[in-house]
C-alpha cells in the first residue's frame, strides 16, 4: 500500500462529513423469513417512518451530498410508497440501490428500473441451486429470484447485482454463482455471513470452515474487482495481499444504518442499543446524528487493537468486524471470530458463561424457525405473499 493510500485509510477512520455508504432499511416487513436475516425481519413495525418523514430524510441526504443509498429491509418493495420514495430520491440526486428477494420484480417493474441510471438493484440468492438456497431463504425463493433476474435481463438492465451471503453450504458453488450472474449480464456480489439478527442462531453451523475461508480468499483474489464484496472480507487480508476495497471497518466512520423507525446505528450489522447513535426524528435530524452523536465521535477516535496489538497482520485485517465480535461475545478490542490465524476460534472455544448480546430488534414472525428440509404443506403457511403456482 502506498503512503498516500495509508493516509487515506487514517482519514477515513477519522470520519467523513457524510457517509459514503448509507444503508436504509425501509421496513421490517418481509414475505420471506430467511434463517440468517441480519435484521430479524418479518413483521412491519407500526412506528415505521411515514412517507413525509422519509422524504425529509432524502432532502437531508441531498444536502449532505450522499451519492446513493443502499435500500433494504425487510423487503423494501412491500412499502406502498416504495416507488414514490425511489422517484423522489432520484429527482433529488440521491441514487438508489435496493436489495430485494425479487418477488415484486415483474417485467413491468424491471422495465422501469432499467430506464434510469440512478436506480440499481441487488437480487438476493444464497444458493446457486434451489436446494441450497431454499434451505436458508425458504421454499420457492430460488425460483422467485431467478424469475426476477430473467425479467431484469429481458428488460435490458445490464449490470444489476446478484447478491450472495457466503455460507458453509454455498462456498462450493462460487463458480456456479459467477456463471449464473454472467448469464444474466449481472455482476456477482458476495458478502460475509454475520452473526447479526437471526444470523446469530445459525452462524455456528453456517459460517465458512477454515479451509473454505482460504478457498474464498483465493477465489476473491483471482476475480479482483469484477466481483463486488461490499468490503466485507477485509478480515481475510491476513492471508496475503489485500482484497480490493477500503479494507477497514467503516462503522460510524464511512457507513451507517437508518432502520425503519429512523434509528441510526453504526452499521447494518449492529442493531443493538450499544451501537445506537440517535434517531432521524431527533432535533437536527440525521445530519446531526452523523456529525455529532457521541457514539460516532467515539468510533472516529483511534481504536485499541487490544489482544491484536502485537500481531504482525493487524495492518491487514485491522481486527476484523466489530459486529462479528460483538454478537459472538468476543471483546471488541481483539481478534475477529474468523481471524485467519485462528485466534478467534480459540477465544470462542474458551468462552464460558459470557453473555452473548441479543439484537435490540426482533420483528420475526412468531413461527418456529429452523433449517428447512421439507416444503410447507401449503404456500400460505410459509408467507402471506406466497406466489401460488398451478401444480
Amino acid at each position, binding site marked *: 500500500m502506498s503512503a498516500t493510500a495509508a493516509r*487515506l485509510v487514517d482519514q477515513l477512520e477519522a470520519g467523513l462529513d457524510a457517509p459514503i455508504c448509507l444503508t436504509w432499511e425501509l421496513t421490517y416487513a418481509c414475505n420471506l423469513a430467511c434463517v440468517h436475516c441480519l435484521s430479524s425481519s418479518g413483521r412491519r413495525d407500526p412506528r415505521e417512518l411515514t412517507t413525509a418523514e422519509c422524504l425529509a430524510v432524502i432532502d437531508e441526504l441531498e444536502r449532505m*451530498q450522499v451519492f446513493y443509498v443502499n435500500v433494504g429491509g425487510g423487503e423494501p418493495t412491500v412499502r406502498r410508497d416504495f416507488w414514490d420514495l425511489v422517484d423522489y430520491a432520484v429527482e433529488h440526486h440521491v441514487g438508489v*440501490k435496493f436489495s430485494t428477494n425479487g418477488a415484486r420484480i415483474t417485467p413491468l417493474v424491471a422495465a422501469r428500473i432499467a430506464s434510469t441510471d440512478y436506480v440499481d438493484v441487488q437480487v438476493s440468492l444464497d444458493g446457486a441451486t434451489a436446494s441450497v438456497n431454499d434451505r436458508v431463504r425458504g421454499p420457492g425463493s430460488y425460483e422467485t429470484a431467478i424469475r426476477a433476474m430473467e425479467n431484469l435481463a429481458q428488460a435490458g438492465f445490464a449490470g444489476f447485482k446478484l447478491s450472495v451471503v457466503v455460507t458453509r453450504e454455498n462456498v462450493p458453488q462460487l463458480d456456479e454463482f459467477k456463471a449464473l450472474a454472467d448469464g444474466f449480464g449481472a455482476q456477482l456480489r458476495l458478502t460475509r455471513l454475520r452473526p447479526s439478527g437471526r444470523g446469530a442462531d445459525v452462524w455456528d453451523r453456517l459460517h465458512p470452515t477454515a479451509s473454505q475461508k482460504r478457498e474464498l480468499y483465493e477465489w476473491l483474489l483471482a476475480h479482483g474487482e469484477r466481483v463486488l464484496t461490499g468490503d466485507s472480507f477485509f478480515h481475510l487480508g491476513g492471508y496475503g495481499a489485500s482484497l480490493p476495497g477500503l479494507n477497514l471497518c467503516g462503522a460510524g466512520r464511512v457507513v451507517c444504518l437508518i432502520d425503519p423507525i429512523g434509528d441510526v446505528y453504526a452499521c447494518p450489522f449492529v442493531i443493538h442499543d450499544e451501537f445506537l447513535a440517535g434517531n432521524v426524528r431527533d432535533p437536527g435530524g440525521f445530519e446531526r446524528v452523523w456529525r455529532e452523536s457521541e457514539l460516532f465521535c467515539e468510533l472516529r477516535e483511534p481504536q485499541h487493537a487490544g489482544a491484536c496489538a502485537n500481531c504482525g497482520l493487524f495492518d491487514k485485517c485491522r481486527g476484523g468486524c466489530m459486529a462479528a465480535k460483538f454478537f459472538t461475545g468476543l471483546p471488541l478490542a481483539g481478534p475477529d471470530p474468523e481471524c485467519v490465524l485462528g485466534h478467534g476460534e480459540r477465544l470462542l472455544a474458551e468462552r464460558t458463561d459470557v453473555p452473548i448480546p441479543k439484537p435490540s430488534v426482533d420483528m420475526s414472525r412468531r413461527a418456529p424457525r429452523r433449517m428447512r428440509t421439507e416444503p410447507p404443506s401449503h404456500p400460505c403457511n410459509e408467507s402471506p405473499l406466497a406466489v401460488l403456482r398451478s401444480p
Partner: protein
Amino acid sequence: MACAASTDPSGMLDRGWRVAPQVAVRPEPFGALVYHFGTRRLTFLKSRLLLDVVSALADHGSARDACCAAGVPEDELPRYERALATLADTGMITLRGV
C-alpha cells in the same frame, strides 16, 4: 502566471475538460469523493489541490491552465496529468465540446 509550453505527449494537458454530466463531486477534508452515477464508480481525490484543479477545469481552455490557476507547481504537472488521465479513463471527466 505564465504556463510552461507543452511537453505533454498525450495532449491531455492542452485540451479542455470538464466534470462529466453524470458525475458528482463532494469535497472532504482529505480532498474529495467523486461518484459516477452511470458506472456507479467511486473515486477518491487525495488532495484539496487536485480538487481545485478538477473544479477549475470547466473555466479554463486547457487542463494546463486549470492547473496553473489552481496553483500546481510546474514540476508537479506530470503527476497531475497522470491523475487527470485516470479520471478521463474512468469517464469522470470528459473533453469539452465533444
